[in-house]
């Protein structure tokens, strides 16, 4: 019971934190330079792990899907399954999980280190709002970088799927491309990128919240970084399911 209350309290605190971030992001002054700097760091640090993690997924879908589709003589349709699965589901979810593992944990560690060293309080003393200068640029950077990475992983995932279907699996290239372009619509891309924006915001928000609430020493910083990764993965999967249900209901 006490654990449940604690959980509810934490959820409430994160929600209040989210409202704070929204309010600060809507008002001046904005530290755009700081945000761009964080974005550049995130892209540089994430691009290789995210690419390496998502690219094999397309290949696996082709590998397994081809087996199944062959049974019904539908192997020309493989690309429509591959395209929708990559664009709508696997690329956004997995890219966000990797952003959480790489960027989320490093943001939480950075903010947490600043906190335990007293740099956050020092900022406040200099009448620079630490939320405004440290947390909000990180949240916005995550929100913008994740969809960008998603576009890259879409291309990589479909390419690796093509590689395993056409040259290695013996599907006709023309049929593959035809079903891909016929079934995958811009709506699929927007759905994926929209999900990525939500997931990216969750990554930045949790990293900021756990980072700025770090208490104690080096171990607490490590714990904040770990917790960011684990909790964000939970949030990503739960939100993913809710969004999928909602989209199915609306019929997009």
């Amino acid at each position, binding site marked *: 019971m006490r654990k449940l209350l604690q959980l509810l309290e934490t959820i409430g605190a994160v929600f209040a934190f989210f409202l704070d971030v929204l309010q600060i992001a809507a008002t001046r002054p904005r530290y755009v330079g700081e945000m761009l700097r964080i974005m550049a760091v995130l892209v540089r640090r994430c691009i290789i792990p995210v690419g390496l993690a998502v690219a094999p997924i397309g290949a696996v879908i082709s590998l*397994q899907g081809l087996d199944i589709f062959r049974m019904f003589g539908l192997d020309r349709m493989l690309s*429509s399954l591959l395209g929708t699965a990559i664009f709508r589901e696997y690329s956004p979810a997995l890219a966000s999980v990797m952003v959480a593992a790489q960027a989320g944990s490093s943001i939480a560690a950075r903010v947490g280190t600043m906190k335990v060293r007293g740099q956050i309080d020092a900022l406040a003393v200099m009448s620079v709002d630490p939320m405004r200068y440290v947390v909000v640029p990180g949240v916005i950077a995550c929100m913008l970088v994740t969809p960008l990475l998603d576009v890259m992983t879409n291309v990589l995932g479909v390419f690796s799927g093509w590689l395993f279907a056409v040259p290695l699996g013996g599907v006709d290239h023309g049929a593959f491309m035809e079903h891909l372009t016929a079934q995958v619509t811009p709506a699929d891309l927007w759905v994926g990128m929209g999900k990525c924006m939500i997931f990216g915001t969750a990554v930045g928000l949790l990293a900021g919240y756990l980072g700025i609430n770090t208490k104690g020493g080096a171990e607490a910083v490590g714990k904040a970084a770990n917790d960011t990764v684990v909790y964000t*993965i939970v949030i990503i999967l739960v939100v993913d399911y809710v969004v999928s249900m909602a989209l199915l209901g609306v019929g997009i």
Partner: protein
Amino acid sequence: MGPLLRHMYEAGVGSVGLLTILTLFAGLNLSVQSYATFERFGGQDFLGMFAGVGGVRELYPVMAAVVCGARIGANLAAALANMKISEQVEALEVMAIDPMRHLVAPRLWAVTLALPILCGYANVVGIGASYLGAVGQLGLDGGTFVSQLHEFVGLLDLGVGMFKGLIFGWLVALISCFHGYRALKKEGAEGVGVATNRAIVHGAVMCILLNLVISWVLYG
């Protein structure tokens, strides 16, 4: 044996709650999203096969490896790096206790043995969740789902899933112990953070890449 069992308990039982929540939603989502895809060409009835084959062979083992890898690997790397920077490892060496044998080996064995069990558990929860999603939410016929599952998912597939778990467990433990053990004293607390971060990211990427290789060899 004592340390081995303790590490297995920490890694395995400690991850069950997290894994249950995640597999539940991943299984539900697998049903919902493949329904949305298959509906486009009228193949809803094959949902059971798709959720079974895709889930048991690929999704659940990889997810268990990435998620438990993130949790277990980070703990391993942080623990070892902490011991390294506080010179506990050197202290063991002074007492003529081999730190590799005493610290690294039990952790490596524990995670290698715990992850296949977690993968098997994830398979069960995931299939149950897929059934719930397909029958309870989407209103598909339960009998069709089960017969599809029965026809296309065999014991062999479950075995492959657990075999993947064994390989992933070994890989995650090896990578985390490597990064944890490599932390240097002069790096201090930051070294611990770097080691855990690398353990999580390298572990996840290597598991996903190796999954493709194993699937290619077995099913390609």
